[in-house]
């Protein structure tokens, strides 16, 4: 293992951390603006031109706010829980190719931290560990809303994670590899080679599960403001709460990358045009997360579990079986 590789990897990690922390902040700005426009409002307007510096104002507020650890909480767990959410979100990004490889100053850069051969498995596994943030934070908070939220997060988790795995199984059977680079190269032939055309059911199922995974609006049950205050975040303040926030938004970006790469061709043949297309696809999926928040109601936890176990899981299993039969003959 030579020094250049270590330096390159560290540089990539720092770049990803900085870009996606900043994007998480900007994501909140876009979310507020998009929601506002959809509801005939203006959104943030006062801090900076068109409210652009609102992100900085929020950041300063979160960083400088007093870090309150309430009296009856289980202190070590309460303190570590937000770190789990933020850290796992960024750890999951290690196996995601954000950009096709390119050559700069005679040096070939692979914009992926680690091209491991179980990429998608690693991404989903680490994202699943992110569950421990809400679960432990909620259970340690000594607050009834937080406790309900923790219970919900566990109940929802075992529902959607089945769908995520089964939905991905069918395209993975076709590709024959778990590496996201291999999955991308499988579809490098252009728009007709995208897996979404051969696996539309898996695409829709995975997309639905992504909403549960990131806790976005139709399945925003873990921290549903009008039912359980802020759920697991009720007792958190300042930067600890901000870590939950950054983790949630980073997760939205990363799951958008995963959907785009697995089902919609990723960066295609690796040209600049393909890379820009990847960013456009990711932007669309991120926008869709905001769009549904303005348009759709939330459902109850039991409805989500009903949907996952009784509707989506049978469909996903049938999809896997059908894919297998088609591949055999």
């Amino acid at each position: 293992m030579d020094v250049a590789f270590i330096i390159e990897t560290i540089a990539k990690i720092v770049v990803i951390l900085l870009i996606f922390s900043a994007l998480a902040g900007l994501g909140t700005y876009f979310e507020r603006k998009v929601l506002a426009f959809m509801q005939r409002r203006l959104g943030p307007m006062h801090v900076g031109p068109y409210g652009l510096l609102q992100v900085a104002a929020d950041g300063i507020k979160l960083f400088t706010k007093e870090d309150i650890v309430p009296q009856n909480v289980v202190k070590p767990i309460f303190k570590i829980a937000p770190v789990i959410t933020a850290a796992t979100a960024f750890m999951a990004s290690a196996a995601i190719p954000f950009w096709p490889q390119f050559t700069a100053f005679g040096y070939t850069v692979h914009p992926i931290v680690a091209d491991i051969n179980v990429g998608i498995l690693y991404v989903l596994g680490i994202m699943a560990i992110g569950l421990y943030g809400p679960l432990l934070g909620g259970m340690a908070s000594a607050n009834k809303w937080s406790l309900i939220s923790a219970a919900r997060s566990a109940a929802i988790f075992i529902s959607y994670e089945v769908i995520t795995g089964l939905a991905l199984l069918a395209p993975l059977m076709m590709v024959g590899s778990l590496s996201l680079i291999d999955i991308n190269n499988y579809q490098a032939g252009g728009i007709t080679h995208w897996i979404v055309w051969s696996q539309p059911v898996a695409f829709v199922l995975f997309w639905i599960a992504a909403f549960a995974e990131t806790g976005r609006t139709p399945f925003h049950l873990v921290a549903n403001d009008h039912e359980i205050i802020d759920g697991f975040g009720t007792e958190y303040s300042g930067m600890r709460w901000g870590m939950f926030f950054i983790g949630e938004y980073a997760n939205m970006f990363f799951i958008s990358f995963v959907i785009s790469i697995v089902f919609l061709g990723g960066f295609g043949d690796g040209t600049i045009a393909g890379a820009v297309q990847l960013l456009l696809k990711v932007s669309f999926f991120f926008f869709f997360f905001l769009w549904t928040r303005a348009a759709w109601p939330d459902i109850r936890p039991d409805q989500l579990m009903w949907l996952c176990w009784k509707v989506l899981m049978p469909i996903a299993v049938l999809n896997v079986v059908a894919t297998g039969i088609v591949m055999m003959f």
Partner: protein
Amino acid sequence: MHHEEVFTDRNVNESSAYYYVDIENYPTTGWDKFKQVVKRTFSGELFVGLWVVMREMIKFDIHTVQYPMEKLPIGPRYRAVHKLLRLWESGYERCIGCGLCEKICISDCIRMDTRIDENSRKEVTEYSINLGRCIFCGYCAEVCPELAIVHGQRYENASEQRAHFVIKDDMLTPLDMLKAGQQAEYPGFGAIIPGSDESVKKTPLAY
């Protein structure tokens, strides 16, 4: 955009805009439940919702009023903090110290002191309204025979002391403003209705 009020008749009949919503009973059998799920899944209602919000975003018909910079006009009969007006020609205070407002005030918040000055004219030495008690009913403005006390349009009342708005000196139009013609004749509560000169009949002469 003006919204036409069609819901004036609040009874449910043919002529009113109200109607009973047709709500189906909940399905009881498993097959009916299944049919309901299928119907709801494929009826595309979720996409209607998506389209509605997207349409509003594209139309960009923003209804926000950016308050400190923009203000909505308030109605002429709005009852904000009181003002004391002056006579246009002479600049004297309109208030003649009759005490009707003090008498009618149902929350007993008006306090005035008067004295007879050297010209045998009744002078108001002190006039204050306790905003902690005032309910802004408008009786004082309505009862005032001289249109002296009126409800102004000033609804932004943030201050260190409520009393900053309702001491006599604060309510009375300053003389320089009067000379600059900046005293607004108030069209609202208790004021003379426009065109009331024409409707005044001559007082019958006594025999």
